[in-house]
């Protein structure tokens, strides 16, 4: 990936969501959500706050994902922390939750970024399910056990959870 900002944004997103960067941004990606999400976050947070977020990430990127997430979400800069939470929701729900007033957007405004963003959002896969109104599973799938969480996300279910 030639754009370092985009690569940092994806790696930061991986640390925040717990999903592997190559799942968020596959090498072969005809849907192209990552650049759309970067533009969405940059616009929603404002260029300066978004740049501060990526700068903070760059300073901690060699740490573990948990340490990165802690540094970003616990940042003393409220815009960084709130923006990071909105980025998590963006990947999980395909919607941008405006974290604070910025330009014409007001805190609490929510918008679905695109039809593809909704369809591909990760909450559905983490729920081992599919978006309402869209499914690629074959007729009768609802009567069978869904694939495991690991098959969907690469992440093992915790003990006691649905596999």
């Amino acid at each position: 990936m030639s754009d370092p900002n985009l690569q940092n944004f994806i790696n930061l997103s991986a640390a925040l969501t717990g999903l592997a960067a190559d799942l968020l941004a596959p090498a072969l990606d005809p849907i192209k959500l990552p650049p759309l999400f970067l533009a969405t976050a940059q616009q929603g947070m404002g260029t300066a706050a978004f740049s501060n977020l990526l700068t903070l990430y760059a300073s901690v990127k060699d740490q573990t994902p948990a340490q990165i997430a802690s540094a970003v979400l616990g940042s003393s800069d409220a815009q960084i922390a709130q923006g990071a939470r909105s980025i998590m929701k963006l990947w999980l729900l395909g919607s941008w939750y405006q974290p604070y007033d910025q330009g014409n957007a007001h805190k609490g405004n929510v918008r679905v970024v695109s039809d593809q963003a909704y369809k591909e959002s990760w909450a559905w896969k983490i729920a081992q399910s599919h978006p309402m109104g869209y499914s690629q599973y074959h007729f009768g799938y609802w009567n069978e056990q869904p694939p495991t969480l690991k098959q969907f996300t690469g992440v093992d279910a915790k003990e006691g959870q649905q596999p």
Partner: protein
Amino acid sequence: MKITLKRLACLGASFTSALAMADAATPPVLSPAIPFDVTANSPTTLDSLQHDFDMLSWQTFVALNWPANADGSANTSAKIGAPGQTVWESWKESYAIFLPRGQKPLAWVQHTPPPAACQGKGNLPVLQQMGKVAGVLDEFIQPFKTGPLVDQNGTYTRNAIMVNQPMFDDIVNKGLYSKEGQQAFLSKADNRIAFSCGSQEHKEVGAIMVKSAWKVLGGNDNPQEFHAVDALVYTPGNTDPNTGAVIPESCSAQKVGLVGLHIVHKTKEAPQWVWSSFEHVRNVPEETTPMNERKGPYLFYDAQASNRPVNEPPEQPWDPSKKATPSQIVREIPLTAATHQLNAQWQGALQGTVWANYQLISTQWPTAPADDCKVPSPTNPLGTPAPNFLANATLETYNQGITPQASSSCMECHNNATTRVTQSPRTSFADFTFLLERAQSTGAKE
């Protein structure tokens, strides 16, 4: 270096223009050999693989449109463009496979009689020219009954679906041509519908389907601009006014010209099949083509009536026996610059043949194919197609666009195809073909 798509996906390598430069320098090779699978060269990206699949499409287009011997094999002593039946036209039409009362189809080499209304009609020499399979075109309604396509002469466009021998053999050998046969096959717990996969390793051609769209040639049409054949154009009768126009069954011999061609090939690297879509170059303008550049004449657009609404199906009832208002169609998703460039190369190589009058619209392929070409991925059976959407203006005329689940995407649509045994995902999945839904019941008690 040949490498698998699964490995390619891991490489994430940057694209270089070396491959494109090599293509520009080397004219395309016109060969009667159907490629077994995509040949991908590293370094790879989405764009480079799209190019590789587009190359596969053109290579397959040339091979399938090669003149055929009497047995349907490619006549390697002839050149493409020579008169006569092409390879794919010797294949089995769907009506010859899914017979009334679930009867077993005749053997591959045997001629299937046309519908009764066509028997004794038409011109016998014309039927002979069509070879083993009569050119019966009995489909005029598009997917989801979105409506027929009417040419500038006011005549309905007709469709046909053919399958190659590996697919035909799979259907016959597994008894999938009848409802009861499907039930018997799928009653075994390990069985699933999985057509054969083309393979470089085994030098095998996989299952191939060809869906064609034809216009009746008349008016100012010049047959020399088309791949033109004499065919029996069949219209089923309808006596129930609640189900459409009341029309008599009819069948007549007509000269028809090819205007659209889907070639669908299942391969090891593309378990969701490779969807290659071609059209006649004069079909329609693109939506983005400025009005003053829409010179035409087009086959499905009147440049002199540019104020008419576009991409709207004819008013019902649809009656193919009568002249209708010509369709006013534009292409909603324009061809890419890369596709234009590749088309120019192949059309140049085909110069002097009628096939230079056809163009690739695009090729849809899976970017995340399943590991096993015979077993769908549990979490991504669709395989994340590229491009996201693909429509042929003659075959998916009225559902072009970019809206998920509504606009035409070959793989998304055909992923919903089912068998006649919808008891579970395993038994219902028809491996991306709606043909198996045509299987009729033998009437045997279950």
